[in-house]
């Protein structure tokens, strides 16, 4: 009998929500466990197996010296490495500290700063090791996660659309909140994947999935201004869960 492929799930600085998305596949998790050997997934099991692993899913960003070393070891032990979520792919909400004086941050939260060991910045996995595929989202969409796992186990590229949230609104027939209600919305520049949730709740997109490919940020920024968003508010909305890729897209 052929050996079952091995799956490992790794955690760096994160909220656990993206790996929870795997456990949230209630209808599929037991059949997935039948198709692959879950060799390392600490949130779910205390049983661990040595690598190499056929597929490693990595959640979280790199924020400590120890984690800089650990991600290199994960890469060495993995045939394919896929980042899941905004932390692993873009540095996450904790990348907001990249703009700040980290020593001041430590003393704001901790009474004895000397006990804390942390890097000045929160960086995505791709800043440290080669990554085979990056799945966006804060959190990721569990359907997309299953597509990525299936694709890698069958040796094909995942079919993940690179269009904007606008396309998803059109597909589900949601009336444009920006045009119809004047609600500021990042949908035109944000990577599809959530299924255009916020507009269906009468809310503007706030960019959980990061920038789409080739976004027209300048045009949207003008429009946000015309709808009454001040400069500070615009800075804030781009600097939330996908700080680095939105900053890069804004300065291109």
């Amino acid at each position, binding site marked *: 009998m052929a050996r079952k492929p091995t799956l490992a799930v790794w*955690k*760096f*600085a*994160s*909220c*656990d*929500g*993206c*790996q*929870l*998305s795997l*456990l*949230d596949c*209630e*209808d599929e*998790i*037991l059949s997935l466990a039948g198709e692959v050997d*879950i060799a390392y997934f*600490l*949130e*779910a*099991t*205390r*049983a*661990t197996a040595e690598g190499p692993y056929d597929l490693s899913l990595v959640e979280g960003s790199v*924020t*400590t010296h120890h*984690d800089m070393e650990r991600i290199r070891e994960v890469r060495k032990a993995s045939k394919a490495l896929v980042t899941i979520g905004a932390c692993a792919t873009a540095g*996450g*909400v*904790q990348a*907001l*500290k990249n703009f*700040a004086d980290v020593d*001041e*941050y*430590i003393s*704001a*939260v*901790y*009474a*004895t700063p000397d*006990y*804390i060991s*942390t890097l000045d910045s*929160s960086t995505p996995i791709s800043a440290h090791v080669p990554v085979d595929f990056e799945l966006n989202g*804060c*959190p990721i969409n569990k359907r997309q996660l299953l597509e990525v796992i299936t694709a890698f186990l069958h040796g094909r590229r995942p079919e993940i659309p690179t269009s904007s949230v606008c396309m998803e609104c059109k597909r589900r027939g949601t009336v444009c909140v920006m045009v119809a209600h004047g609600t500021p919305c990042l949908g035109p520049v944000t990577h599809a994947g*959530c299924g255009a*949730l*916020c507009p269906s*709740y*009468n*809310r503007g997109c*706030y960019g*959980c999935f990061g920038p789409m490919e080739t976004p027209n940020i300048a045009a949207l920024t003008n429009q946000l201004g015309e709808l009454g968003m001040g400069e500070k*508010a615009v800075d*804030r909305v781009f600097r*939330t*869960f996908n700080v680095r890729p939105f900053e890069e897209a804004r300065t291109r």
Partner: protein
Amino acid sequence: MSTPKTKTIRTDALARVEGEGAMYVRIAGREVEEVKLNIYEPPRFFEAFLRGRGFTEVPDITARICGICPVAYQMSSVTAMEMACGIEVDGQLRALRRLLYCGEWIESHALHVFMLHAPDFLGYPSAIELARDAPDVVASALEMKKIGNELMTVVGGREVHPINVKVGGWYRAPRKGELAPLVPKLERAREIALEAVRITSGFDFPDYEQDYELVALDHPGEYPIDRGRVVSNRGLDIPVTEYDDHFVEEHVEWSNALHSRIIERGSYLCGPLARFALAADRLSPIARDAAREAGLEPSERNPFKSIVVRSVELVYAADEALRIIAEYEEPDAPAVEVEPRAGVGYGCTEAPRGILYHRYEIDAEGSILDAKIVPPTSQNQRTIEEDLRGVVERSLDMPDEELTIRCEQTIRNYDPCISCATHFLTLDVERR
């Protein structure tokens, strides 16, 4: 004189907990010398980067502290901001918040009871192996978890980091027709939960009790979820605004999570055991009957029985969600208008694993000047270490491997959320 034999029991990376932690126990002869719960999850500095953000951003940003209990963060944060701005959300808008919270309790408790904690009692490394021997039990647990997620998705927009919660209420209130399909599902979840109470109450429980100070919220006529005074079994009874006068957080070298204690008293316990001890009379009749049949009394102090209490709370959460849906009327507006003003606001709600406290100071434009967040795992950390010491003292003759598993099981009694607490764990037992 001979030196007593020292041994160390350690788990460098604890499994089936949310986040990263380790434990370390050093035993010299028959004495437990040191016990540490080491939370090495890297710090993420939420309280620092919240400064300068807008008051309306707190439910979205603080949700990202924890993927397991984002609703708890959203509820404590919006409650605090609403107090700072001088408004209160009530009626159906508040009922919907309690409904969303029931979804998170169902999802989180179902995950913890069956996927994370039950394998310890039944001798399996995970629910996946458990599923090979007891497929129906695991399938039902997953079904219940899924129903919790569906409730969160309908009311909140999605299960992880809901998008529909705002300061003042909601972006869009659900229509009655959207909630109606949840009714037969929640009735099914309640049946599965009743079976969970029967199953977990039949487990073998280690013989261990501690005389805890138990802390939970208290509001007349309600099982504590989304509001109330902060009360304990030793006479603490304060409004949330006085939390900082009675509780302090300390920074210890071995943990990236701060340790909380009650000033001049010490450690305390929050979460299911505390809520049940202080408010069992306010459970719904079905949940109360289930607790009675399981032999649970409000005087229960065996932390290993928290798995039974969690199952009773699963019954309650499904039942309470059904009540709220039955009484639901669509509100005229999805939110009340909120204008920022300079001030301070406090919020405390019952996350699945215990009370979650937020305090914010904002300026007249609504920019955050200062933020303080105290998650339940920080509050329980000292008590977890005290339990570890007590459990090891009673289990000194156990082989190391068994003792390690027992220690991990002890930690899991608290459903610790390490991602929350750093804003957790490796077992390390050293014998001398």
